[in-house]
């Protein structure tokens, strides 16, 4: 019994919408007046430093957290009305260092959602092979354990796992931040290629400007729980907003003020 494909978009084409969302924990406000949207096929990068609320925003998408005020809509429906299990199985989630189950082989890790969705064995096996190829891993690695893999390999497995049930939405939290620069660069390029093929709605969290510029269709810059700047990538790159400038300088040295 496989999952029925999720209807791709709401009436206005957005896969994910945040509508004046306010979130606090133990009295501390973490997100304030957050409004943004992601269309199917679009990659939104949430950029910001630690503590700016990026991870919290991600967790509001897959229902790990619920907004205190306002609404988060996935495929047009409020996350409050979604069955949390169905919601999460429709969203691929990749975290730093993979979050792989140490007691499962690579194959079992990737096959996780298909298995619990009741796919038959052959379909699962074929899918695993397909995904390993997709993320550039040797099929022989299928029977290895995460502890036997390098960081880059683990991350690829993490991406494969997130893609396994072909969810319409992908969210990634600092997915490449723990990798060495060369591997990181490889992963970014491969991911970019994957995105163009798959046209999923992607929300990618990072604190790295260069990564954001490489992967994003839009960039939302967050600071202290608010979205400060939300622009298409090309505009963001040349924006003169003080915070954006501060970011650019941090990555490439001071700029001359014209």
């Amino acid at each position, binding site marked *: 019994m496989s999952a029925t494909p999720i209807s791709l978009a709401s009436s206005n084409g957005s896969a994910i919408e945040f509508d004046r969302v306010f979130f606090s924990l133990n009295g501390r406000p973490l997100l304030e007046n957050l409004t943004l949207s992601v269309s199917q096929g679009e990659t939104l990068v949430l950029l910001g430093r630690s503590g700016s609320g990026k991870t919290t925003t991600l967790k509001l998408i897959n229902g790990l957290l619920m907004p205190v005020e306002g609404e988060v809509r996935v495929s047009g429906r409020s996350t409050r009305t979604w069955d949390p299990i169905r919601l999460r199985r429709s969203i691929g989630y990749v975290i730093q260092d993979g979050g792989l189950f140490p007691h499962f082989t690579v194959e079992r890790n990737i096959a996780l959602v298909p298995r619990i969705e009741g796919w038959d064995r052959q379909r699962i096996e074929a899918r695993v092979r397909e995904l390993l190829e997709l993320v550039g891993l040797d099929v*022989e690695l299928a*029977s*290895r*354990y995460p502890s*036997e893999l390098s960081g880059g390999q683990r991350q690829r497995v993490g991406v494969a796992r997130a893609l396994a049930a072909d969810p319409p939405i992908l969210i990634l939290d600092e997915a490449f931040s723990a990798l060495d620069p060369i591997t990181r660069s490889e992963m970014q390029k491969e991911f970019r290629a994957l995105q163009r093929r798959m046209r999923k709605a992607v929300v990618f969290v990072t604190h790295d400007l260069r990564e954001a510029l490489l992967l994003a269709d839009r960039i939302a810059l967050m600071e202290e729980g608010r979205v400060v700047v939300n622009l298409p990538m090309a505009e963001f790159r040349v924006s003169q907003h003080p915070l954006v400038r501060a970011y650019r300088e941090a990555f490439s040295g001071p700029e001359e003020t014209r």
Partner: protein
Amino acid sequence: MTSRIHERQIVRHRLAQACCALLSFALLFPVVGCAAHPHAIVIGSKNFTEQLILGELFAQIIEAHTHLPVERRFYLAGTFICQQAMLAGRIDIYPEYTGTALTAVLKQPPGGNKQEVYAHVRDAYETKFNLAVGPPLGFDDTFAIEIRGDDARRLHLTTLSQAAAYTPQWRAGFGYEFMERADGYKGLATSYGLRFAEPPRVMDLGLLARSLVQKQVDLIAGNNTDGLISALDLFVLEDDHHYFPPYEALAVMRREMLKMHPEVKQALDLLAGKISDDDMRRLNYAVDGQHRDPVTIVREFLAAHNLL
């Protein structure tokens, strides 16, 4: 590549082997146990001399009159443990007293004469526990109020009622348990209207007889079958008010065992009424006073009564 899978498979295989080994080992036990011995008759006893002698008596008479192997499990720590062992089938026979069966096992108040108590215990054990009770062996190990033989003869005393007249001039010595029990000193004093020159001395059971002989006390409470009674020329006053419940000794037996081996009951019944109070005292004395081996003295006793 497949090394890890292979390793896991080896581990699983080893674990399975270990489990199989454990299981077969565990299953082997009952088989080995049964094969080691065709079912022996297990005789238990409590952990004081008289019980050891009675247990040995049961064992030897069964050995002499049946072809069954007998196992001895003596020194069990008390009535409760013996009873549990009977119910669990761990022992088949042990010596018990009617009074103890009534109060400690059946948890009923003491009362009634010998016949009443015996009948009641026999019937209750059958219905409640499915245990059989043999005929009384012939002696009563009840509490014995003892005075020096000299005094008994000089004052022509045979019963407690008679002695009550002299107690205001005497000192008494009792053990802790006798002082505490409701059916001990308090009830006795009430029943016979006893008063003593001073409050009774409380001391260790082992010291009572010696204190009596050395005239530190004039009256003590001991056991009717104490080995030292004759040896020290002590006299047991008759309980003419029948204050103390009877403690007739008999064999408690498992009915399942008797169904399979009725010859066991036939052998034990040979002991009915054969052991008088005096006989038991002598046997106890042989072990406690003369430090002789219970096995030998039991054999001699059985031979002397043509029971072997």
